[in-house]
């Protein structure tokens, strides 16, 4: 509730309080996530079901347009008119009105979107942080307001699926409006998709056992998707989406947040 309060206060004090609120939000931005044993929706390997997540810190909210603008101003090589094509496609920051201007289609408190994996990574590195790994993201996103692992709860599932049903049509909401989960982290569901450090490892066709059969997906195809775990569906949607990306891709619903500790 304190975070919601901050958001409200920021709105109420739109002009005078803006700097203060931004500073407060930034200072409290990253929160500790205690580690633990976790069963990801996609088995980590043959004959393995669980992974051990070490304790780490994760941003309370996705990175906003305002925050990314500060980064681009400080590191102009990441401006949309200067970034090499290797590191971002043509729609990189395309919703901003200029290379260093947000404009009407990019509100300061909306999560930044139209960012590539390379750019997201560079932003986090500039904050002495990194992107979370997929397992870290999945582990944290399994929580609701009271449980670390709410995946068996139909309400948790329905909320996420409800967002999937509307996300393409509506405007991206500002960050910080979602209910905090048990760690105090917001907006893991319901706002944007998020880059993870190892998005390139999510759905890999097995190199050795499927040689000559490139369409066979070693993990997702052979393992998780053949199960009847309907409750895994919201997360499998994420996996499918992330695995379809290339590191230079940018889209209107893909943002990120940073993590720290336990550098992978």
């Amino acid at each position, binding site marked *: 509730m304190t975070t919601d309060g901050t958001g409200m206060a920021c709105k109420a004090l739109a002009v005078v309080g803006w700097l203060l609120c931004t500073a407060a939000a930034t200072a409290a931005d990253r929160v500790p996530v205690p580690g633990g044993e976790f069963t990801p929706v996609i088995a980590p390997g043959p004959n393995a079901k669980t992974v051990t997540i070490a304790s780490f810190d994760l941003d309370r909210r996705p990175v906003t347009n305002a925050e990314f603008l500060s980064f681009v101003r400080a590191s102009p090589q990441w401006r949309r008119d200067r970034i*090499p094509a290797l590191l971002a496609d043509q729609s990189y920051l395309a919703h901003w009105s200029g290379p260093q201007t947000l404009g009407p289609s990019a509100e300061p408190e909306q999560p930044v979107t139209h960012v590539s994996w390379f750019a997201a*990574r560079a932003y986090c*590195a500039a904050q002495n942080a990194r992107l979370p790994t997929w397992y870290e993201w999945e582990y944290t996103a399994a929580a609701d307001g009271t449980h670390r692992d709410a995946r068996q709860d139909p309400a948790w599932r329905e909320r996420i699926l409800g967002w999937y049903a509307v996300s393409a049509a509506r405007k991206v909401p500002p960050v910080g409006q979602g209910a905090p989960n048990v760690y105090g982290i917001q907006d893991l569901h319901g706002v944007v998709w998020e880059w993870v450090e190892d998005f*390139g*490892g999510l759905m890999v066709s097995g190199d050795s056992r499927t040689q000559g059969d*490139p369409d066979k997906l070693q993990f997702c195809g052979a393992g998780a998707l053949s199960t009847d775990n309907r409750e895994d569906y919201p997360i499998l949607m994420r996996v499918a989406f992330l*695995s379809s990306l290339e590191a*230079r891709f940018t889209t209107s619903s893909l943002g990120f947040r940073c993590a720290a500790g336990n550098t992978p």
Partner: protein
Amino acid sequence: MIIRLPMSIAAAAILGGCAAGPQAPTPSHNHVHQMEPPATSLPGESLYQLPADLDSATGDHVALASLAGTPVVVAMFYSSCTTVCPMLTLQMQRFEAALDPVERFRVRFVMISLDAERDTPSKLAAFAAEHHVDASRWVIAHAAPANVRSIAAALGVRYRQLPDKSFSHSALITLLDSRGVPVARTQLLAGDDPAFMAALRASLR
């Protein structure tokens, strides 16, 4: 941590010296490589826009951008891999063998390990020896974990480490032109690959 200014490529290229040069590295070559064009003159699509460094099996520090100047055939692998990686190596050697001696001298072959933890330079040196790669043209390299991820991402190599420390990875061979722009890719790991060879020869013209 990882991605810094693309400008730093130029600095890295100088620091990297000629470690990966087609000749055996000697200090006297360093000044030659300092003359290489700065990163800003590289095309935006060039892999060398990544400010990533490699450490070769011969113990040399190789800035990615220092590979500019000749076509490069590049793949990612790991040395303890007993299935696909030997085929990758063999296929790259097949490309090498198909070139005539003059062409061969002008192509660099680069294998970058996905296994940042275990593929130390000495391990990679053993791999190079085992596969009889020609050290004057081949770079078998290790990179920091963050650099491995960015290079793999830029090349489109998808990979994942399994609990037993092995990797599942796409078996992909990429041809970079002399400025680092990917111009051909292949996933064919056995037999003739006329399309890739044609692209390789074209990149030498």
